[in-house]
């Protein structure tokens, strides 16, 4: 392989690696761009025991407060350790940050 070919191959590798990093960054951001707060603490403690956060963030922009409450109540019925007060805190948090605008 000539020097030019080596440089060219190196550039291609850098480009691919750079793209991969950007993609990985985008994926991490999608799952982790929720602001801190009491609701996030509940989300991370009670929800991720059973599923990844993407199961929640996938609903971004679709649900009203009533629909988010329905999701939280259903998850509680499934066994999520969320008390009645936390149901409202989590519902408000999800509505504010992922709710239908």
């Amino acid at each position, binding site marked *: 392989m000539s020097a030019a070919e080596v440089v060219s191959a190196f550039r291609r590798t850098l480009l691919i690696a750079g793209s991969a990093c950007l993609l990985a960054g985008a994926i991490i951001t999608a799952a982790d761009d929720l602001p801190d707060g009491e609701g996030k603490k509940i989300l991370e403690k009670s929800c*991720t*025991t059973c*599923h990844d956060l993407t199961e929640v963030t996938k609903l971004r922009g*679709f649900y009203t407060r009533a629909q988010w409450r*329905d999701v939280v109540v*259903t998850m509680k019925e499934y066994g999520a350790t969320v008390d009645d007060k936390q149901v409202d805190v989590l519902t408000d948090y999800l509505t504010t940050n992922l709710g239908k605008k």
Partner: protein
Amino acid sequence: MKTSIFLAIALVASSASAQVRIIQTNSMGDNIHLIDPKTNQIVAEVKGVPLNHGAAASPDGSRLYFSSEAEQTLDAVDGKTFQILKKIALTGRPNNISISKDGTRVYVGIVSAPGAVDVIDTGSLERVKSIPTKGGIHNTWVTPDGKFVVAGSIAGKLMTVIDQKTEEPVWTLAFDQGVRPVAFEVNPDGSTKRMFVQLSDYHGFAVVDVAQRKEVGRLELPNDIPAEKVDKGPFNGSPSHGIGVAPDGKTLWVTSRPNARVYTYSLPDLKLLPNPVDLGGRPDWVTFTPDSKLLYIATENTDSVVVVDVTARKEVARIKVGRSPKRNITMVQR
């Protein structure tokens, strides 16, 4: 004599022109893929069904139906153009769906509390009834003989069996865990002999004798891979989330998320067969070609479908689909 010859010719002509498609939903996407099992290539795509959950097809394949968790609708789709004909509003958040044998009713599991099965009339494309259940409904199935609708509840840990004609519940069966996917074994007359029921947080399945209306046993899947290779999850509370009886009735196939494998049991003796198939990802639902030769297994964390040769129990193809594929069905278009 003339009539039977005509019928035979019609049947041969019909089966010759029949077109099989594997319908693969993508739970985190807004599209659904149709796979031709002759080539194992994607041959069509349905778009515009965000966070699609369940799939059903009319008996002749002229119409498809999908539930959308995001929009809380049942979407009716033309089987030729793959365009959405109508989005039908539901009473709550839908999960899985099924269709009556004659194609006139779609049964939608409503997971929102208190739970229901919404009934859609496929002629008018309207919701005509909502059958109350004890606990939100995750899955519905129409039994192979078409006589009953089986609705499984995770929250209620209950299976509700509904008479398809009257659309009224006729019996229920309680479990100690939520009801997940179910497979059906039939008697020679076509009626249901046993149901194989996957349960929340159970790495295996329960066996239900339908005549007795009770659970008669449980089979745990093997722990047969090195500990360091076991996927620790999380698995959405469902370590085993895919099960199916091959159309020829000879084998039962069960997926394991921790082991990333599919296991095979002979029927009716439920003997574990050798050579489980490694899937390279977390498996979900399974569906067969009508001739029982190929099995399609969705693997959610690889965004692909693994095709398995049923007789050889070997992977023969891997098809890239959409985001987080889970539920799938087989459709025959005539």
